[in-house]
C-alpha cells in the first residue's frame, strides 16, 4: 500500500484569521489536498470555539470549492459523534489561533492529540496559524499571555517553533534567550510566512506577503545563529502553487 506523505503547514500568522482579503496561504493549503473538492475541518479549540471565528472559517472556505466542517469541543452534542472517524476522513485539518495552553489542555481531554498524529501519519494535511502552528512542534514559544513562555507541543515535528516572529518583538528576543538556555533548535515564521514540512523535513517556505520570511534557528557555541530561509511569495505569477508530491492515495482508509 502506498502511503501519502505526512505534511504540516505552520503559519507564523495569516490566512483568513489575520489577512482578510488575502487568501494566498489558505489557497496554498487547500491546493495541497488530494481531492477535487477537499474535505477541510476547522478546529477552533484555541479560541474556545468562538462563534464569530467559525463563521469566518465557513466564509473563507465556502462550499463551492471544498467540503468544510468544524469540530467544537465545547459543544460535542452538536458535532460529529465519532471524532476520530471524522478527523481521519479529512484532506486538511486547519487549526485556528488563540491560547495554545488551553488548546493542548482541551485536546488531551478529548484524545484529539493522538487522533491528529494518526491523521498526519495517514496523509491528512495539518495546518494552522499561531497556536495552530506552535502545537505541532516539540517545543514552542507562546506569547499569548504576558511574558513569552516555553511550552511543550504535540511533538510531531522534532523542533522548536516561534510565530509572529517580527523584528524587535518580545517573542523574538525570548526565543533567542530560550535557545541559549537549552531549547532545541527550530524554525520561526513572520506573519504571512508559512513553513511547509513534508515528513519531518522543511520542504519550503511560502508567503502571502512579499517581505514575509521564515527562519532556521540554532545555537553554535554560545551564540544563536539565525538563518533566513529563501521564501516563495505566493502572489508571484511564477510561484508554483503547491509542492509536487507523490501520487495520491486512492481513498482515505476507513478507521476500524
Amino acid at each position, binding site marked *: 500500500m502506498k502511503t501519502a506523505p505526512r505534511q504540516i503547514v505552520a503559519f507564523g500568522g495569516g490566512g483568513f484569521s489575520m489577512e482578510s482579503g488575502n487568501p494566498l496561504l489558505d489557497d496554498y493549503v487547500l491546493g495541497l489536498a488530494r481531492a477535487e473538492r477537499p474535505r477541510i475541518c476547522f478546529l477552533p479549540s*484555541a*479560541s*474556545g*470555539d*468562538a*462563534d464569530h471565528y467559525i463563521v469566518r472559517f465557513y466564509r473563507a472556505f465556502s462550499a463551492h470549492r471544498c467540503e468544510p466542517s468544524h469540530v467544537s*469541543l*465545547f*459543544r*460535542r*452534542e452538536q458535532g460529529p*459523534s465519532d471524532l476520530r472517524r471524522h478527523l481521519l476522513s479529512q484532506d486538511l485539518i486547519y487549526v485556528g489561533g*488563540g*491560547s495554545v*495552553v*488551553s488548546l*493542548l*489542555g*482541551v485536546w*488531551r*481531554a*478529548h484524545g484529539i492529540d493522538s487522533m491528529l498524529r494518526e491523521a498526519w501519519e495517514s496523509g491528512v494535511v495539518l495546518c494552522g496559524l499561531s497556536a495552530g502552528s506552535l502545537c505541532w512542534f516539540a517545543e514552542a514559544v507562546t506569547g*499569548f*499571555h*504576558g511574558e513569552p513562555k516555553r511550552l511543550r507541543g504535540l511533538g510531531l515535528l522534532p523542533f522548536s517553533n516561534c510565530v509572529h516572529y517580527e523584528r524587535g518583538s518580545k517573542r523574538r528576543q525570548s526565543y533567542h534567550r530560550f535557545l541559549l538556555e537549552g531549547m532545541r533548535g527550530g524554525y520561526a515564521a513572520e506573519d504571512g510566512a508559512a513553513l511547509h514540512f513534508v515528513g519531518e523535513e522543511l520542504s519550503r517556505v511560502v508567503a502571502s506577503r512579499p517581505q514575509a520570511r521564515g527562519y532556521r534557528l540554532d545555537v553554535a557555541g554560545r551564540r544563536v545563529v539565525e538563518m533566513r530561509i529563501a521564501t516563495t511569495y505566493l502572489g508571484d505569477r511564477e510561484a508554483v502553487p503547491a509542492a509536487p508530491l507523490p501520487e495520491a492515495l486512492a481513498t482515505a482508509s476507513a478507521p476500524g
Partner: protein
Amino acid sequence: MSGNGGLSTGATPVRRILALGGHEFSSRPADRAVCELLLRLARERGGERPRVCILPTASGDPSELIASFYSAFAERPCEPSDVSLFRLGRRPLALRDHLLEQDLVYVGGGSMLNLLAVWEAHDIASILSLAWRRGIVLAGQSAGAMCWFEAGITKSSGKARAAAGLGLLSGSLCVHYNNEPERRAAYLDAVGDGMPGGYGLDDYAGLLWEGEGSPSAVTARRGARAYRVGSREGEVVESPLAARFLPAPAPAALREDIAEFRRIKTMRKRAGWLG
C-alpha cells in the same frame, strides 16, 4: 506559599460553596433571585462593594455569557470582572492575584471535561482551592457546580456519563436533574454501580455549603428541588430536601420606571393637574 497570606486574624475562614442546578443571568424573577443570593454571599465576605468574578471557561468564554453576567451585576453595588482564559492575549491579567482578590468566584456552565482540562493547563485548580480555604465563596451552575465535587454527570462527550471533579466537596452532583431525564438516569445508574452518592439539583435549585456539615437547600422557582441521592443495600434512594425559597428582588428596570412615574406625578402635582 506562606500560611498567613489570607487572614491577619487567627480565625479560620468559613469555606463556602454554592452549587446551582441551572440558571441564566437574565431579568426573569428566578434568575434575579439567584443573582441576589450570589451578591448576598459576596457581601458577607467583602462588605458593601464586594468583588465578584466570572470564570466562563466551561463554555469557551463566549461573549454573550460574559455580557449577561455584567448586565446582571452592573447596576448592583459590587465590582464585577471576568477571567477569560481564552482571551488573555487581548487583556493580560495577573491570574492568581486577581482570583485571590475576589469575594466570590462564579463558574459558568458548559463542558465539565474542557473546564477541568483548561484549568489544569493554566494551573487554576490550586488557586481556586486556596481561594476556598481563604473564605472566598465559590459558586457556579451546571459544569460550574459539579466541578467542586468528586464526580459529576457530564455530557461533554455527547452522551451523559460520569466524570471526576476537583473534589473540594465529597460525593457527587448531578445538575439539570429533572430537566434532563437522560442525565438523571445516567446518575442513578452510576450511583448504583458504585459511584459515591451525592445530590441531584433541578434548574433553579441550589445547595449551599457553609463550613462543615450538611448543605442547606435553596430554590428560586416553585417546584425546583434538591435531592439527596445514595445507595442503600444495593438500591439507589432519592429523597427530596426541604429548601428555602429565594424571593426575587424588584428588577432594576422597574425601579427606574417607578422613579420616573413618581417624578411625573410630582411635577403634575406642582402644576396642579392632579387633585
